[in-house]
């Protein structure tokens, strides 16, 4: 099979820890937390640069290239600029909620990285309900966005925040159901186990699940084609209109951190995480994350955005039945043909996915028409 024997020996270290860890070794926990946060922040800044350059090249122009070689220090310049700006709070705003909103948006996204495996056993904590933890934690940032929209005392931000809440809640369901297909094949909720059982990447075995997770994930992180929250051709800047200075920087970082989290999760669930020949595993993981992020940027460069009622129709009428049918088909496969032939299941799955998508897309209508007033 694809070799996974290269490791830093961390799993043997993990097995010699005392059973009340991290109670006695709190400073190990601190060191690893700092390492993971540093990694996430660095890759985040790199993503800001990568997006601007790649988006520029796809639009027949150069990206930023003045600040440092190839513009690599551009995110640093952005961070400095944002730090020295004045922090404006509207007078009628709810001060505590206004202050807490960016924090509530950013921190849970960083918490997702506690369970993402960078290597075999190289996680902060190997929860055996890792997937449930990820789903639970990733539902909290939307609360922060709503707090931001409410506390700004502004009609536009309230409309934008309400749209956002409605859309994220609708897309949670197909996303979670598509992950149920992954769990059925992998047999465990722990992310490390999911990667270990992926001798063939699950994108081949679960094409429909990948599609649903990808589209649903894009909707959750409010990227094009679902970025009607920050659509600056509609309600100026959406929920973060009234934010400036460091709080705005936290929202901005939260958006990219969510994109990074989505890329990391897709790499873990569907692209078999850190596994791969010849190169060290963490490098494979990084490459897969960058490839997924490139696909996200590619979508942003090409597609127009869809309307809010079309967004909801897509979630409830298209993705939700697809996710249910996906679970049914996967369950039938796991029960009737247990993994004796993973290679035989791949074409079956792809054909079933194609048929379902074609069939369902013929059947449903997208959004309302004109309403008589």
């Amino acid at each position, binding site marked *: 099979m694809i070799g996974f024997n290269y490791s830093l020996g961390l799993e043997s270290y993990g097995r010699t820890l005392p059973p009340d860890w991290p109670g006695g070794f709190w400073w190990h926990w601190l060191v690893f937390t700092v390492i993971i946060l540093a990694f996430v922040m660095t890759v985040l800044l790199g993503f800001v640069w990568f997006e601007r350059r790649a988006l520029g*090249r*796809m639009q*027949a122009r150069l990206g930023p290239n003045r600040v440092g070689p190839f513009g690599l220090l551009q995110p640093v310049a952005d961070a400095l600029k944002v730090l020295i700006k004045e922090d404006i709070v509207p007078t009628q705003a709810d001060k505590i909620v206004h202050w807490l909103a960016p924090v509530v948006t950013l921190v849970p996204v960083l918490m997702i990285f506690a369970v993402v495996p960078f290597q075999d056993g190289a996680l902060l904590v190997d929860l055996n309900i890792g997937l449930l933890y990820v789903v639970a934690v990733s539902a909290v940032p939307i609360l922060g966005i709503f707090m931001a929209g409410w506390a700004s005392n502004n009609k536009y931000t309230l409309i934008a925040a309400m749209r956002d809440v409605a859309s994220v809640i609708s897309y949670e369901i197909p996303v979670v159901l598509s992950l149920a297909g992954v769990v059925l094949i992998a047999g465990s909720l722990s992310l490390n186990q999911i990667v270990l059982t992926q001798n063939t990447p699950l994108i081949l075995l679960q094409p429909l699940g990948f599609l649903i997770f990808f589209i649903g994930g894009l909707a959750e992180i409010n990227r094009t084609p679902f970025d009607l929250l920050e659509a600056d051709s509609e309600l100026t800047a959406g929920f973060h209109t009234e934010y400036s200075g460091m709080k705005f920087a936290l929202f901005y970082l939260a958006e990219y951190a969510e994109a990074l989290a989505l890329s990391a999760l897709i790499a873990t669930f569907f692209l078999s995480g850190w596994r791969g020949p010849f190169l060290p595993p963490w490098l494979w993981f990084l490459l897969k994350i960058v490839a997924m992020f490139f696909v996200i940027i*590619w979508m942003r*460069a*090409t597609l127009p955005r869809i309307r809010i009622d079309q967004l909801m129709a897509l979630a409830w009428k298209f993705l939700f039945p697809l996710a249910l049918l996906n679970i049914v088909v996967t369950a039938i496969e796991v029960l009737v043909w247990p993994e004796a032939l993973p290679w035989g299941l791949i074409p079956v799955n792809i054909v079933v996915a194609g048929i379902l998508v074609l069939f369902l897309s013929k059947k449903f*209508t*997208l*959004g309302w028409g004109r309403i008589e007033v």
Partner: protein
Amino acid sequence: MKFEHYGIGIAKGLTVTLRHLFRHPVTVQYPDQRLHTSRRIRGNELVWNEEKCTGCATCAQVCHIGAINIVTSPSQATNTYTVEKYEVDTGYCIMCGLCVEACPFKALYMGYDYERAKYRSGDLVQTKEMMMTTPEKHISGYFYPELATRLPMQTLLLEKVKEDE
């Protein structure tokens, strides 16, 4: 409305964007790289030839903005007008070129340079001395094709994109 194309349209659009990733970008990085402007550019100043000018003030009459200011006095010795004050308010002028076309003695030209920013708006008024033709001043070929042939050819985006693809 029904879905009709099953995602093929999106895939086609994605290939176009991907193809652009491998093409050379069309950006010109000013001020390191500059383009040659057109030979007939109606640049940011007026250039005045004192020998040919007779002080008839046709240019001031034709200027519909009123940006040209001429004061002349008759000189008995040579039986001509001497031009005492000839001012153009470059901040007011819209560079339409009607004065250049109207001059019957071909004494007025449009400038070729376009980088003439000043720090104060009062500095934009061109007085008589600033307007005279000197060897350093570049004259554009607007309305005078024989002057245009002396200037470099215009860089066209058509040429640039053709050779880089």
